[in-house]
């Protein structure tokens, strides 16, 4: 049965009536047309669908809409969702985005939004991560072009510029 939800994404509230089992990823892409969050596996195995929920990285492909939205007529409070589109401030890129851009840390770029979101969450928790912490924090994200070396450089660069510390 469809239910009515209020979902807060990138600071905007959206009200929609839909199937409560739908993955957050599908709602972002199919209803809100926020295409920067990508489908990769549907099972939380690859990180392409990463978004921030109250600052923490989650896999939107395996999170149902009713887990993160405010459900009309219930106590369930909505959480604040940030997608790749919400990271930059107008024309000014988020420091992690800027670091990925400066390092050219992408090939096809399909995994890149998920990588940037995951790195943003990582740097928020650990503003100056060691290489081991970068690897641990990013191992849930697959880049099939295997451009990992540049990603590590980009995250180091963002950390040096204190990108995630704010």
């Amino acid at each position, binding site marked *: 049965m469809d239910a009515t939800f209020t979902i807060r994404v990138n600071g905007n509230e959206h009200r929609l009536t839909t199937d409560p089992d739908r993955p957050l990823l599908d709602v972002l892409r*199919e209803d809100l047309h926020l295409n920067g969050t990508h489908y990769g596996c*549907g099972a939380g195995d*690859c990180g392409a669908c990463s978004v921030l929920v109250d600052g923490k990285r989650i896999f939107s492909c395996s999170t149902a809409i009713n887990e993160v939205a405010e459900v009309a007529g219930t106590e369930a409070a909505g959480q604040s969702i940030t997608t790749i589109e919400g990271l930059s401030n107008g024309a000014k890129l988020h420091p992690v985005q800027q670091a*990925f*851009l400066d390092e050219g840390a992408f090939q096809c770029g399909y995994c890149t939004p998920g990588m940037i979101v995951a790195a943003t969450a990582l740097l928020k928790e650990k503003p100056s991560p060691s290489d081991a912490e970068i690897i641990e924090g990013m191992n849930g994200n697959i880049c099939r*072009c295997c451009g990992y070396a540049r990603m590590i450089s980009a995250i180091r660069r963002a950390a040096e510029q204190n990108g995630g510390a704010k």
Partner: protein
Amino acid sequence: MNTPISDPLGNPTSTGQVEDEPESGEQTQLNRRQFLQSLGAGLLLAVIVPVDALAQERPPRGSGPNRTANEATLAARLHINEHGRITVMTGKVEGGQGARAQIAQAVAEELRVSPEMIDVIMADTALTPDDGGTHGSQTTPRTIPAVRRAASAARDLLLSAAAAKLGVALGELEARNGQIVNVANVRIKQELTYGQIATDVANSKAFTASPSRDIQISAVADWKVLGTSVPHPNARALVTGRHFYPSDYGGPLVLHGAVLRPPAYRAKLKSVDLEPAKNTPDVASVVRDGDFVGVAARTSLAARRAIESLEKSAEWDTTAVVPANTTNVYDHLRQNVRGGADAIKNPYADELTRSTASLRSEYRVAYIQHAPMEPRAAVAHFDGDRLTVWTGTQHPFDVRNELVRALNIDSPDKVRVIVPDFGGGFGGKHSGEVAIEAARLARAAGYAVRLVWTRAEEFAWAYFRPAGVMLAEANLAEDGSIDSWFYRNINSGNSGIASPYRAARNNTQFVQSEAPLRQGSYRALAATANHFARESFIDELAVLAKDDPLNFRLKHLGDERMIAVLRAAAEKGGYAATRLLKSVGTGVGIACGTEKGSFVAACAKVQIAPDGKSFRVTHICQTYECGKIMNPANCLSQVQGGLIMGLGGALYEEVEFDAGVIKNGNFTDYRVPRIADLPTMDIHLLDRPDLPSVGAGETPIIAIAPAIANAIYHATGKRIRQMPIRLDPA
């Protein structure tokens, strides 16, 4: 950036510079005239470059794919608008390999402008010439020279037009920075912008040229843009999530599709009850056409639920299913070899028997999957009887033809295939199945449909890199040279099969077999299998000859380029010292190879776990040479990425299957390289300005597996003849 060009669904075009939200466009099929209007006033050039004029740029060796009719000539279309912005139209696609930047560089170089002045429109069958697909590392050695000649012809045209306009001799003018400038007489400032000339010339007519054979392209020593690390033109859109991949098209104007899949490869649909799907909430359309059954729904969850309802009643004929599985597939391939036992019989068998130093080995590579991060995806939209499809494919024009046939459309002109920069191909996106499926669903629904394959579908229903059995047999003469060399590749393919090692007699062939799974192309295709087998076997022969593997190779190699990469990898990878000071549980191995005209060598170090059951690759030094490097940063990305992708096939990747059913079709059970798998990498690009540039997207993948297998032998004395390489198969 230039104004976004409208298309039937109001999406941005594939210039890759998607910065703004898409503007809503007209709901009409775009024709070329409208398109040119949208580019603004200016000059359009269609330049035909005969392929034989490019002969000197062709790689001296290597087995590229067969040339199609479309490739007999390479056309390049250029447009210069009134502001001097240059648009180049190419049938090539961008799937992360860096073609877009390199094509922009090629035009910028010859037209003497900065690459920011170039917009590249790629792979749109309504706008771009048919360049015969993007595969086999052909963009660098074939497309780039054609584009450079076209741009060079454009520069000549601009110079001639300016000379006429200014009333000066051609020799007094020079093209620089988007202007034609009188350089002979610097006291009077005499110059015309490209925009001024283009609008002037365009008053007469669009220009079609076949440049003369001796058209001048810039010498490497004069390069200003080529040879530099020009970034990905749509880099900013990639980091902001604003780039539109094929699976992003359609916006609010699409239904979401899903397709009923057989339980096993080669199973045929006998019957299915469509009613439950039709009754699923939010389902707009259910269609069956022969074996094809699909639905279109308001959400993709509704579409998947409708398919689940069909799976309950579907009955399948499984008599054609091949009963092979992960374990017995190698016996299956051997037993079903085309031509029977004779096809794999060594004509030098007697020599082997008589010789005191002979060797026979068999190597195996598993079926693996490309698993690009963006699964196959297409958005299909009918406007009357005209069809537009956005899809991620390496062959836009072939996919257009596939659509024409599959949907019985009476003319290819009624089908437009647009390939936005897509999320990875690796040789896996040559075909148009998802485009056809989306188009069938769109036709049935009377509405645009977006179809994105699930990861499980991508693992099970996309074609695989073929498994193979490689037979290698040789004997050594008294002096340690190779007397006879016999080699068969069963099923996996021909690429990279030719041995670079001198042998008095050589009999090398690829033979086909009966494939239990659907198989096709892959990054470097069989060059990986053939190099794994050959570079392992040559190591075994070195042991037989009681020689050092590096020495033995060097004695039998002739090609100076191969020798150069091999020596460099050994030197920079610390090969000799590690051989000499070998400590318990460590080993070093080396391997080299060539494919598609470029050369690679790898020196790998491994550490064996104390229990002897597992190992770690601790260090890889890889040297790579692809002639003159056109974009060093992109080349390095390709070499790093290829190396690590090769590590996946070397150590982890194997499709598990049984009787046509894929058993590990997800990223938990099918392990691809992750960031934690990254070994210490030491990569050296050997730039050769004296040699023509060749593609770098494939060859860096081929040397890593044999280098690791050889290092394991050095560490343990155990020879692993199977990819993925496992010390303890159980």
